[in-house]
């Protein structure tokens, strides 16, 4: 599985990358949504994991652009954010339409659960 990870914090990103590579998956990590789009152009991801609160553009803006390209319209996304489920609904009411299949709250989601959720989404796309 090839994961496109957009996470603003370097130390946390390092841990996430380690968890996925340890489980045998490839991860392309980016802090900036724009460079993530460029990277996806080079190697299409099977899954996106992103925080909605980023530096330059929000996760919502990124997903709007990402979904506008037909080849990436169905790539599943997981929100791994410090925004809880309720906050996310207020923050981005359309996140379900943006292909966010799973919401993982950073404070309560262990990395193993994040890896399992990712695996499940890629193996069973209808999940």
């Amino acid at each position: 599985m090839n994961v496109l990870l957009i996470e603003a914090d370097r130390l946390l990103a390092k841990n996430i990358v380690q968890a996925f590579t340890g489980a045998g998956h490839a991860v392309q990590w980016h802090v900036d949504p724009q460079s993530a789009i460029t990277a996806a152009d080079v190697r299409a991801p099977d899954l996106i994991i992103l925080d909605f609160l980023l530096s330059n553009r929000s996760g919502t803006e990124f997903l709007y652009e990402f979904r506008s390209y037909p080849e990436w319209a169905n790539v599943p996304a997981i929100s791994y954010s410090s925004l809880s489920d309720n906050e996310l609904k207020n923050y981005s009411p359309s996140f379900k339409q943006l292909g966010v299949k799973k919401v993982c709250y950073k404070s309560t989601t262990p990395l193993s659960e994040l890896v399992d959720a990712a695996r499940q989404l890629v193996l069973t796309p209808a999940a």
Partner: protein
Amino acid sequence: MKRQHSRGSETFARQRALLAALSDDLTLPLVQIKTGLELVELENFSKKTVRLQTEAMALSAESGLQLIEAYRLLLRSDQILDMPFEPVAIGAVLEEVAHQLTHYAKQYSTELIVDVQGRFSPVLAHPASLATVLEVLSSSLIRAQASQSQQTNYRLVLGAHRSSEGVIAAGAFSNVHGLSDRSLRAARSLVGQARQPLPAIPPGTASGILVADMLCSALWQPLRASAHRNLGGLATSLPVTKQLQFV
């Protein structure tokens, strides 16, 4: 009576905003530690990797504790203001802060540089508060810079200079964009209400800047956008010791 009530609710609103800011910034080091621990438990790391991972977790813990210290000083700012301020050599404080943050900065591939432009008479300050402000501000800018662009190396300058009005300003300077007097003013009114009061900076980082700003406002002057050797940043103006100046 009415005025007293409104002052009370103002203080309550300020405390609430401060706690919200603090919780945002504390989440990040705690999640870093939590995920780090999980990896040590799950992965079959070598001894060296476990040591590196432990060091990273210790630095995350220190950064969280530093923020709590800033918060405690802010709660005590009224008492601190009643104490006589001491003459402090600003260069020495900046060196000390750089020393404290060197390992943390390395985790974010950041080189710390201390740059004091010229020779200054000592400034009047509460030394622990000044050091804490500069530490919290610098660690926030270290994270902010690394979150805005992906590079192999970053630089953060802990600097002091004399402004055109003759005031000594000390602060942290880097290539972080989106920090201006205007964005700071907006952020001050949004703190505690918005998750991202400084839009160019992620939430786990912005709050540290705002807590430092509140502590500066309570003790000296609020933080202001400032430039130092072609780098942008935030600095606070410090009063010079008049007696020593006279000597």
